[in-house]
């Protein structure tokens, strides 16, 4: 129980920023991403843009996996659906990015929900098959076949260099603009997820995750809530897919392989399931680690770049041996200490 500080009202207790340390961290941390692009190399700006985009996608996974406990293996497919939808909205309808993202999200959400239907009967790892099937259907087949051009609008599509947020207004094109827009989106979705996590909806997700039998007997509608989780998660991943198109500027099915799914699992689990901050921490760590290991190898041992995944893997394993519950848990202990500071235990 908190002994350093205490709350005077329920509202306060439900606040996002509850402890002094969190306030401090926020004040110190907030400016960093805002000034970053002006001090970082173009490469890092780009890396962080990717971090933000994947961050949103992994938040979606986080809702489905850490809250609802659904093993979803279609990050690639979801992002593809989002990407192709967005591309059509932008290129053909010319509505601009924000509508594109919205529709992409809704489209993905509905497909996700459809493939979540088996969750009504199937539990645990078995349900993975459903979304795995989607991954294969969408990426190995549907988006590759010209026969379905009427639906997906072409197996390969490229985005204009400049895209207006709404129609042609407020165009986004330069690396920095992409950076800030992605950042903004990540913040928005992080906040939405945090809100979700402190309301009854997420509680019911978790309850079904931890003990679906008693949860149902105590009034939780399992089927409805599982589908809701798929919808929310799917929406977020779809939006990430849409952002991915402006980041890469070109889409082709190969960009959305199962590897993305595995990568996102790595990010989520490394961060430590269950916490929004964990997601962001995980995504950032994985991307930066990969980036720096690769750069270091190119600089000092260019013939050995194939060792990159090896070093990465070993580091991950060592980290986990030190703190098997993930980075967030490690930070949590530090935070506990600081929160109580200067009071003794």
């Amino acid at each position, binding site marked *: 129980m908190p002994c350093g500080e205490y709350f005077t009202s329920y509202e306060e207790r439900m606040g996002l920023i509850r402890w002094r340390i969190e306030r401090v961290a926020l004040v110190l941390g907030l400016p960093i991403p805002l000034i970053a692009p002006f001090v970082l190399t*173009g490469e890092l*700006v780009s890396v962080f843009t990717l971090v933000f985009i994947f961050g949103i996608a992994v938040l979606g996974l986080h809702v489905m996996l850490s809250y609802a406990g659904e093993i979803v293996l279609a990050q690639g497919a979801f992002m593809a659906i989002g990407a192709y939808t967005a591309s059509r909205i932008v290129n053909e309808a010319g509505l601009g990015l924000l509508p594109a993202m919205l529709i992409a999200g809704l489209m993905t959400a509905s497909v996700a929900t459809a493939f979540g239907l088996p969750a009504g009967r199937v539990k645990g790892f078995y349900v993975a098959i459903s979304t795995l099937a989607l991954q294969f259907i969408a990426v190995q087949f549907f988006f590759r076949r010209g026969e379905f051009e009427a639906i997906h609008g072409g197996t390969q599509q490229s985005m204009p260099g400049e895209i207006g947020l709404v129609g042609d207004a407020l165009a986004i094109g330069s690396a920095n603009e992409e950076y800030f827009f992605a950042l903004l989106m990540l913040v928005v979705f992080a906040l939405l997820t945090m809100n979700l996590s402190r309301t009854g909806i997420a509680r019911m997700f978790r309850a079904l995750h931890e003990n679906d039998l008693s949860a149902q007997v105590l009034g939780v509608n399992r089927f409805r809530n599982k589908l809701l989780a798929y919808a929310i998660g799917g929406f977020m991943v779809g939006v990430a897919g849409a952002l991915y198109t402006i980041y890469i500027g*070109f889409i082709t099915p190969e*960009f959305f392989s199962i590897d993305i799914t595995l990568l996102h699992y790595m990010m989520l689990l490394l961060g430590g399931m269950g916490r929004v901050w964990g997601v962001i921490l995980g995504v950032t760590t994985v991307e930066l680690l990969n980036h720096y290991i690769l750069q270091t190898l190119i600089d000092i041992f260019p013939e050995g*770049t194939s060792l*990159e995944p090896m070093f990465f893997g070993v580091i991950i394993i060592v980290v986990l041996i030190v703190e098997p519950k993930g980075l967030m848990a490690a930070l949590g202990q530090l935070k506990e200490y600081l929160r109580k500071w200067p009071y003794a235990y």
Partner: protein
Amino acid sequence: IGGGGSGDNTALVGGIHDLSGATSDVGQPTGRGTRDALAWANENEDLGFEINHDWVDYAYDVPNAQNHYNSLTSGDNPPVIIGWGTADTEALASEVARDEIVYISASYSDKLLAEETPYNFFVNLDYTSQGRAHAEWIANNDSGATVAMIHNTTPFGESPVDGTEAYAEELGLDVADNITLGLGANTADTQVKRAMDNDVDYLIHQNTAAPMQVLMSSISDLGADITVMGLTWTVDEFRAQSVADAFEGVRYVNTNKSWNQVESESPEGWQIIEDSFEREGHDMSNPEIANINYVRGVAHALLAVEALKRVDDDGGDIQSGSAVREKLIEMDDFDARGLLPVTLDYQDGDRRATMFGQTYEVSDGEMVPDQEIELPRREEWLP
């Protein structure tokens, strides 16, 4: 490394190679060829400028390519980037067009010849024309044979199918249904059986190395009497040697010379390779690197250097991609120090380097040069 610091007399030449990713089996020799040749040019050419090759091994993972591209373009844009394959080339095509950066890569899809991508250049027949070259060879040597395309279902795999089939029919060959063979296939038995049922004599194969192996081993297992004609990525000296008998009789087409050809025919180009192998300590006797793909990489580098040199000689701005593009269009006497069997001739409306294909036939593990095919340079073949 990071951002591109390029003073007035250094030309920043970006590099996006795959040395460790899914396509590294061919990407590694190519990438090394490029890197070595650029280093060689800095040492041995009296360029009025220094080439700064800022490269990344993107491991065929697009975001890495994107990140490096953004880093290259975060300063003032480099005039040239030497890229690698389908993934990076197509992902960046529209961006290089916007940023006016010449992008030389080994992605030969004829889509890249379109107006929308004026800054993409490659040193080979486009995939479709490679298929056509094979068809042409059949027409010349075995008219009346039945031919079928075999390919994977990615856009890369699909790209040459229609064009090749159309030309084959035009040449009066029987064209059987095309067959797909997945990138990750572990057996091709069913595909080969199907080809046999359709009495196919020649399979024109657009794929990567791995499926080619699978295809060849299924063919020899089933004892099918089918000649496989591979496009760019299916054959090289290493494969021809290491699985000699499976590859016996395989036909191949390309527009840069094979290792042995260079060694025997083009002393000037050979010099570059010898020096580079010396300097880098590569092993001449190891076909994993000493092969046609290394030559390919060197050719890419030389093309970039040549264009930059010409810009510099005319007092142009070596930082400017459009200036470099100018020169590429002007050039019509470039044969990469003999690494290419012909001279390239890019035109503004028609960026096909050449319509010339050198065909090979594998026998006892050697890629033996065979006929040279000259295709008509037809307008309607452009996208």
